[in-house]
């Protein structure tokens, strides 16, 4: 195993660690910081893979990740949190040990699911595909277990990070046109959830999505 692969594995471990961190962090700014760190690890990992494989378009996507996931999105969320004055809000996270255990089970499941692909791949990054899938799944778990609108969005963005990591680890990155398109979609999504936060806030007086449970099948 060469150096690049080792560094990449380390970064993969760090990304997974931040994913677990997001899962149980209660404070808004804490979440934001962990999310920014995850983006940074992702960006560095992309650059390392780009260097090791000699594929230069990965540098572009590395810079793109840095701009979007480490600077722009955390900044937007930061401004939103301040404007909405929710930076002091502490979310009650129920059942931390159970959530962690489910998270670990998801990691094992991801390893199991990607086993046949790992055997096929010849890339230096192949062992990290399972971590990428695990990050996606943990993001999903976060969206299910948390009840705050901002937290759910961070979970959604963490999922997107996992997907991006999957693209670099399985294939040395998607074609550039696709990556640019995905980045554009995330930007539009950021614009939309920004508007949403204010709508939810003005209609429901808080950003807890628990109170949005009117639409049900009545008997």
């Amino acid at each position, binding site marked *: 195993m060469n150096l690049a692969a080792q560094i990449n594995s380390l970064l993969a471990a760090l990304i997974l660690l931040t994913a677990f961190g997001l899962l149980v962090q209660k404070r808004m700014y804490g979440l934001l910081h962990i999310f920014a760190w995850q983006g940074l690890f992702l960006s560095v990992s992309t650059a390392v893979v780009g260097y090791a494989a000699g594929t230069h378009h990965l540098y572009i996507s590395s810079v793109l990740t840095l701009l979007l996931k480490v600077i722009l999105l955390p900044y937007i969320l930061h401004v939103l949190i301040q404007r909405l004055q929710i930076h002091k809000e502490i979310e009650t996270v129920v059942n931390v040990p159970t959530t962690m255990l489910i998270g670990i089970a998801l990691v094992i499941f991801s390893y199991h699911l990607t086993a046949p*692909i790992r055997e096929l791949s010849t890339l230096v990054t192949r062992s990290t595909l399972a971590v990428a899938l695990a990050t996606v799944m943990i993001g999903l778990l976060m*969206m299910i277990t948390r009840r705050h609108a901002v937290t759910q969005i961070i979970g959604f963005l963490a999922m997107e990070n996992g997907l991006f990591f999957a693209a670099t680890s399985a294939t040395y990155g998607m074609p550039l*046109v696709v990556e640019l398109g995905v980045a554009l979609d995330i930007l539009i999504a950021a614009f939309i959830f920004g508007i*949403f936060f204010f709508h939810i806030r003005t209609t429901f007086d808080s950003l807890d999505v628990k109170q*949005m449970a009117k639409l049900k099948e009545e008997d």
Partner: protein
Amino acid sequence: MTLLILLSISLLSAITLAFVGDRKIATEINILGSAATFFAGVGLAVQVYMQGPMLAAGKFFFVDAFNVYLAVLTSFVSMTTAIFSRRYMRREREHGRVGHWGMRFYHAMFQLFIFAMLLALLTNNIGVLWIAMELATLSTVLLVSLYRTPTAIEAAWKYFILCGVGIALALFGTVLLYFAAERVLGEGGEALLWTNLNQVKSLLEPTVLSLAFVFLMVGYGTKVGLVPLHNWLPDAHSEGPTPISAVLSGLLLNIALYALVRCKVLVDGATGTHQAGYIMMGFGLLSILVAAFSILRQKDIKRMFAYSSIEHMGIATFAFGLGGPIATFGALLHMLVHSLTKSAIFFTVGHASQMNETQEMSKIKGLIKGNPLVGWGLMFGVMAIVGMPPFGVFVSEFLILTATIKNAPLLTPLLLVGLVVAFAALFRRVQPMVAGEIPANQQFLKVAHIPVILHMVLVLIIGLYMPNFLAEWFHTAAGLLK
């Protein structure tokens, strides 16, 4: 060339409408833009019909019989919806349900939505297909919450989150597909082009592709509204403005199914088994049954028809899963007639709920006496959608049923139960709404005649006599999807 014109019209209209804003002329520009898109779509269809499948803009776009008919359908329904929404939205504006910014937003996003759907249909790159699907979701999220009521915001949030998650899983499936493709086609953008993939599909790694299909199925299946991933659909349909319900039901679900079928073709070629088909049949059948029984329990008129859409998308998914020339022909036809009929129903439903100022079915009465077009339109629309002859839905459902009896006889009773329950449930609800005396509080309404009549006549024509070119088209498309 026609293709680029087709795409640019809707994009340019979106930008223009963003600037025009809440002026009276905005509705006319909206109609004009959609009509121009429709004519460009017909032009493209004629070109494809004469010359066969073609690539454009350096393989970036690909048009064959399968996607061109959906492109024409998409532009046609968006044109009629634009005509319908002229009167509908004007009234909502007068009644203060939508504000100044709301109208600006509505028109611009409507055109952007059409652009996203056409891009999804015509692109050759399955990565871009994903991006366009996501764009189509994002452009409609804020339209669902246009009325800003608590329930509308809840519905839009649900739509945003659930479809966001779903579509993220589809991206993972696309990454896996690219991983398999790259090993055969080499690195770079070429490996994501559907036409290239289609040529080498038998060489793609089967294990990777079957895993990819699971993710694609769950991802795009969420957008198709298949049970158990359908939770967003009834909410989004019932809380958004009715023109948006019409295009969501009639068009967006079709596009998502299109994406799924395109991917299925590749997976089938790689695995050489019928595995992907079985998964689709399972999801489809479950959707038909769950939706049919859910229709029984509905009180809100738009929610009821939303469940009916789930049922019909289930039928089409089931038929694509079943495969074979007859079932695929039936599925393609079903996508067409369902789209036409369901949007016509939503047009009448929109007017009916405006007349009675409620969406609750028990309070809607005397539609035929109040306004014959709305009453009879709803009546005939429901007769068509439940599959009564001589309407087009009967033909497609008959074909699918025949194929089921032949190839999967054991599933026939389940399919029939679903169809019969939906039939009974819808009729039971519609009868009291259209018949009876006019209630005291019913409002007089200027309604949009053309869209409803046009759609119903088309469905009737397809049911009575299928034009030759259409049959030929579906045959070619069914051949492509083998």
